[in-house]
């Protein structure tokens, strides 16, 4: 593999290697403040140079953990691939070969980039990386991008495996949310009760992203209060008015947390007639959280939403 990289580098014209190095350095700067114009200009130059830049970047520059560099890799490689199907193939071939690199970061970035390129033909090779603890993050990103439901069981297995770190489990949940389908939904619902809050919320956000209204509706009667609250929160954020009738009774729930979450969810689907029950409810209400939500809802009925969306 190292030999291959060397051959590829040697294939570049002598001056080009140095030129690309300098431009690449600029392309990998932080795109803020005084760099705001400089960085995109450097990336544009690299994209315009096309094929030789692919030889320069793959695999030579894939060994990068810094997100500023990986973002630059993504923008430049995708930019080149978009120009011409032959260049896309060249990028995919190089990255597919890099999946077998001895360097874990190279494998991870190669998988991630193949996902971004939509190279689903490489999915079997990428799926093998799920067992590779150093590069499975990139594999998950790619499988999420491919949206292959066939990969759901192995991702769900990784999610539930004993000893899987929390961050990896969140990434599994995010990937399931990207893929969707019945099996993914089932796994996501189960993790609304996960012991790790980060996983629970990731599952909620994934279900929101899938607009899984019917699935979430069934969770409103879950025995675990945390699951009910996640479902209420998600349904409110989705804002599908079809669930109003499910939410309204919960606005009178004996548990103030459930009442508050239900009213908050209803805020995204209010009707002027809600004033009629909300005003008396506000007078009766003792809980400061629920009172605040009722006041917020009544304000929203009486006035348009703030332009900043807050």
């Amino acid at each position: 593999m190292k030999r291959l990289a060397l051959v590829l580098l040697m294939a570049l014209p002598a001056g080009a290697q140095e030129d690309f190095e300098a431009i690449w350095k600029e392309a990998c700067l932080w795109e803020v403040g005084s760099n705001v114009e400089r960085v995109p200009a450097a990336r544009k130059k690299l994209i315009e140079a096309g094929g030789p830049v692919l030889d320069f970047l793959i695999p030579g520059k894939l060994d990068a953990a810094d997100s500023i560099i990986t973002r630059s890799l993504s923008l430049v490689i995708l930019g080149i691939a978009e120009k011409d199907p032959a260049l896309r193939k060249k990028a995919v071939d190089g990255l597919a070969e890099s999946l077998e690199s001895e360097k874990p970061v190279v494998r991870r970035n190669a998988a991630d980039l193949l996902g971004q390129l939509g190279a689903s033909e490489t999915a079997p090779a990428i799926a093998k990386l799920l067992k590779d603890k150093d590069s499975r993050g990139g594999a998950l990103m790619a499988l999420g991008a491919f949206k292959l439901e066939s990969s759901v069981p192995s991702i769900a297995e990784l999610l539930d495996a004993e000893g899987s770190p929390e961050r990896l489990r969140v990434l599994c949940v995010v990937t399931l949310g990207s893929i969707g389908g019945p099996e993914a939904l089932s796994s996501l619902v189960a993790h609304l009760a996960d012991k790790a809050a980060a996983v629970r919320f990731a599952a909620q956000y994934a279900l929101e992203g899938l607009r899984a209204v019917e699935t979430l509706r069934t969770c409103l009667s879950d025995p675990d209060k945390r699951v009910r609250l996640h479902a209420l929160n998600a349904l409110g954020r989705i804002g599908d008015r079809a669930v109003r009738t499910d939410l309204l009774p919960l606005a009178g729930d004996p548990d103030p947390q459930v009442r508050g979450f239900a009213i908050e969810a209803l805020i995204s689907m209010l009707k002027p007639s809600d004033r009629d029950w909300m005003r008396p409810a506000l007078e009766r209400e003792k809980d400061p959280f629920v009172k605040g939500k009722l006041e917020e809802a009544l304000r929203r009925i009486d006035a348009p939403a703030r332009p900043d969306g807050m």
Partner: protein
Amino acid sequence: MKRQLALFFAIALGASAEEPLLDAFTRSKLAEALGCVNLSVDDLGWNKRPIDDDFRLKCVNDTLDRPLELADYAARAEREFGADPRSAAAAGAAWLDVDGLGTADPEPFELDLKVEPESARALALEFAGTWRDAELYRAGATATLTPDEWAVVKKNGARLYLDESEEEWDMTETLAAAKKAELAGYFRAAIVLARGAQADRKAPADAADWKTAVLTVRETSDEGLKGLKISIGGSGNDVHEADIAIDVGGNDEYRNCRFVLDFGGDDTYRNCGEGNFACALIVDLAGNDRYLNANLAQGGAAFAASLLVDVAGDDRYEADQCSQGSGYFGVGMLFDLGGNDGYRGARFVQGFAGVRGLGVLSDVAGNDTYYAGGKYSHAPLLPENFQSLSQGFAFGLRGANTSGGVGILADHAGNDVYSAEVFGQGASYWFALGVLVDSAGHDKYDLYQYGQGAGIHLSSGVLFDRAGNDAYSCNYGVAQGCGHDWAAGLLLDLAGDDYYQGAGMTHGGANANGLGIIIDRRGDDAYSGSRPQVQGFSFQSRGSFGLGVLLDLGGKDRYSEEGRDNRTWTKSTLGVGLDCEEESR
């Protein structure tokens, strides 16, 4: 008077240790607020440290895993870094996971000094002994390094934080070698220095007999002391330029001295007490003094221990970088026990720590002014603003994936003004811990961005103000109880009518899976945000959540956003505010 003062603080701080800063009422209200966003207190321990490295400190992991412990660490900082440098040096070791300091002193040595009167000779011998013992411990800290490793550390060690070229350089080799430095040696050296400081010293009875003289050590059994230059000063206005200077009075000027003991007068210190691969000690017992340095001074240390104790007077401290209680691979401490003092520096000052460092500034009394900034641009992000990275700030080396240390600024009394630009005031960056504690007085905190109880990028910070009507201002946000990117930040103000002004991610704000909490326990307060992303705010990131929490547990308060007295509100993806009165329990 000084003893009474020290006793007062010992009692006051001891009493405060009895009650946790987050009392039962605060904890119950926090639990109630968290319930409104479907979380519990235990949930605050979501994983904020997905990577590890060899330099990580327990207190950093503790505060990322259990962020409420930031309050406990603030209480410890207030208690342990008061008026006593010796106990502070011993306590400081635990912050850096150093135990087993031991008590054995180095072997005695023989030294013959021909100086009169006897009190001058005794003090010169004592300070030479302090020098020798501290240096032995310092050298011992790196004794296990090979000659090649030592050469790399000696060449690049200070450069870890002092390189102004802005050019990236590969720190790997330097850090790999420096990792072998045993911090216990630096703490032993710090204890030796603190023992030598003795803030309650009295001027010798025969001070009138002291004559100005300079002597060079020749007859000694310790090779390390040979050639040491010792300057003795009488009651007049003297100029000293020596390794060690001891002066009983007058308005003196010290130049390039490493160890100084001055009994009185308005003195000027130029380039003295520099702790760059060398131990340093300055003890000034009275007078309005000026300290002027560039780097690694005024209790600033790299691969060393450095201590400055100024007992009384209105003093002015000016330095560039890594000074005024600053340490990396070492211990740097500055104690000012009285007077209205002014601290001015550019960057990495006023309770700053880098990798494997403890930096402490403890100011025990007086109305003090702290300024850090004005020199090093924060380009490219904010090219028109300057970096501060100061005032209870700690800084790991992100590019080298190397955790930072612990930076503490503890001001125990007076109406104080803290001013910094980018990064400062109870904050840290990259697996480090920054603590700013102010125990009393009506204080002003001014910052441009990133700080005032903030963790920035997988890091922790706390600002704790015990009392007084305080004003907190931050132009550009990420402040006042903020966690930015898998980080934890806490601003805790226990009493007084306070005013909080900020921009985005402020007053309990978080982004990129961070946690930011602001707790104001009592008083009539006002919260003003120039942007709506304040007062309990965070957003979804990396597929999961961050959390912003605002708790105001007493008084009549005003909020620029949706907060109101006796209300609980939620906003953004996951933000919560709770306002209540304790009597309403």
